[in-house]
């Protein structure tokens, strides 16, 4: 990070060079509705009226504002507001220019953050919202740019409705995974969600779990944190609990073909969670007779982790240790465009990577998980 001109120009050149070489499969791209009414065409009159009158109802204190006000409007980098006048991520042409074209993105995997259907307090409305979102994603995004691939969003608290939604889209190659919120009523390993895993495994769809949603539970085991600076970190901590739940409940024993991708939690925590789980499993395995392997093996065989927000060790080379410990094939690159904590391909992983390592992280691992040719 030298301020000297020469170094900076070299970095520029390096970025230009790496940009021309790097092909990126971006495992976390956020599109957005331009207006809440964008869903109207896909909702019945009953639910259109409900949306306009009662709105989205989540277990949160405010109608619209975030419970923990973010560090930037719309959670987004301030240069990502598009010329169409809508919020960041709402203008396909601008998203193409600022992300897909600029960074040589081969595929961009869409995760819609707002609204969600799954954590709606009115579950029938939640199911209607999910269906509407999926239709909207298909018509307005994946059909308009073949690089963009959607996730089937499902009303996961109502497993039956979720499975119906999965089956509705499963044969459509525009949809490459199933997505649920992560702040769920019960930990995601519990039985109420198993029909969803059954359907995903049966239909060959990975389950992408992007940090998101509201469930009314305190955001830490010790109560409600005070600041956004805490919340932003605690969402990653909650993804650790999610991984622990999936493993301990035996989800991967029951559905050996299931693949789970943890999105937007960073990944440097994966080894230490694996170590801790294994050590205590050694002492308490009689509580989990349904597991036939050490917990770390499920984390290593059934789960993948996206890079963003890129872990920035105090000594950059320590990131190599993390990749060694967790397995290089587990690492999927993600930008999280257009959010403020996004990562810039080629400049976020501050580690000297070989060409093979680069190819794995930036594209080939994702290609394998999602079955891209």
């Amino acid at each position, binding site marked *: 990070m030298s*301020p000297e*001109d020469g170094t*900076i120009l070299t970095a*520029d050149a390096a970025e230009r060079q790496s940009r021309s070489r790097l092909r990126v499969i971006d495992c976390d791209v956020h599109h957005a509705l331009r207006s809440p009414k964008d869903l109207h065409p896909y909702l019945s009159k009953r639910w259109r009226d409900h949306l306009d009158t009662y709105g989205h109802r989540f277990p949160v204190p405010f109608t619209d504002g975030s419970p923990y006000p973010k560090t*930037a409007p719309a959670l987004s980098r*301030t*240069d990502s507001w598009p010329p169409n006048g809508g919020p960041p991520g709402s203008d396909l042409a601008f998203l193409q220019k600022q992300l897909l074209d600029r960074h040589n993105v081969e595929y961009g995997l869409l995760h819609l953050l707002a609204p969600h259907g799954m954590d709606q307090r009115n579950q029938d409305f939640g199911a209607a919202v999910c269906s509407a979102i999926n239709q909207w994603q298909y018509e307005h995004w994946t059909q308009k740019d073949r690089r963009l691939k959607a996730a089937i969003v499902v009303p996961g608290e109502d497993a039956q409705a979720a499975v119906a939604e999965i089956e509705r889209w499963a044969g459509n190659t525009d949809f490459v995974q199933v997505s649920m919120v992560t702040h769920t009523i019960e930990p995601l390993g519990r039985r109420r969600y198993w029909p969803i895993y059954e359907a995903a495994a049966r239909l060959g769809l990975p389950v992408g779990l992007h940090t998101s949603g509201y469930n009314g539970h305190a955001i830490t085991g010790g109560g409600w944190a005070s600041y956004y600076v805490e919340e932003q970190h605690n969402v990653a901590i909650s993804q650790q609990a999610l991984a622990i739940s999936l493993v301990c409940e035996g989800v991967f024993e029951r559905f050996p073909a299931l693949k789970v991708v943890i999105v937007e939690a960073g990944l440097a925590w994966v080894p230490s969670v694996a170590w801790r789980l294994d050590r205590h499993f050694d002492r308490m395995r009689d509580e989990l007779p349904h597991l036939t392997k050490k917990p770390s093996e499920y984390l290593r065989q059934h789960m993948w982790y996206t890079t963003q927000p890129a872990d920035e060790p105090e000594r950059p080379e320590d990131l190599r240790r993390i990749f060694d410990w967790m397995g290089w094939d587990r690492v999927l690159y993600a930008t999280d465009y257009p959010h403020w904590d996004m990562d*810039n391909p080629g*400049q*976020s992983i501050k580690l000297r990577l070989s060409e093979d390592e680069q190819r794995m992280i930036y594209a080939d691992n994702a290609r394998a998980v999602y079955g891209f040719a």
Partner: protein
Amino acid sequence: MARHVVATAGEIPPGGRKIVTVRGREIGIFNHGGEYFALLNRCPHQGGELCRGTLVGLVTSREPGRFDYSRPGEMLKCPWHGWEYDIRTGQSWCDPNDTRVKAYEVTVEPGETLARGPFVAETFAVSVEQDYIVVEV
């Protein structure tokens, strides 16, 4: 190092900025209440276009719960990750010893002086009647 004429003095209003390209580098020129500052338009963290960021005040604190707000408009927040840089020095707040953005010398010069040279005015025809913003790169 050479002196480059990059704007007329009236062109950047107080609180405003202009991003110029000098010798292949994008540089942001800021007018802070009549004082001019110039920074490289590139955040050393991940390469964001720093000079398109929001100008904010400096907030420090003597004790928890106290917000000591000063120097409004003198801290530049990167549009991406929000790292704050002092527009006077290019020094980052979060990592002042190791993370700085290149700051350039800026002066306002009467056209009459510039006419005597040496300076580089790639995009400007300099007239003796006006004042100009000159950045040393």
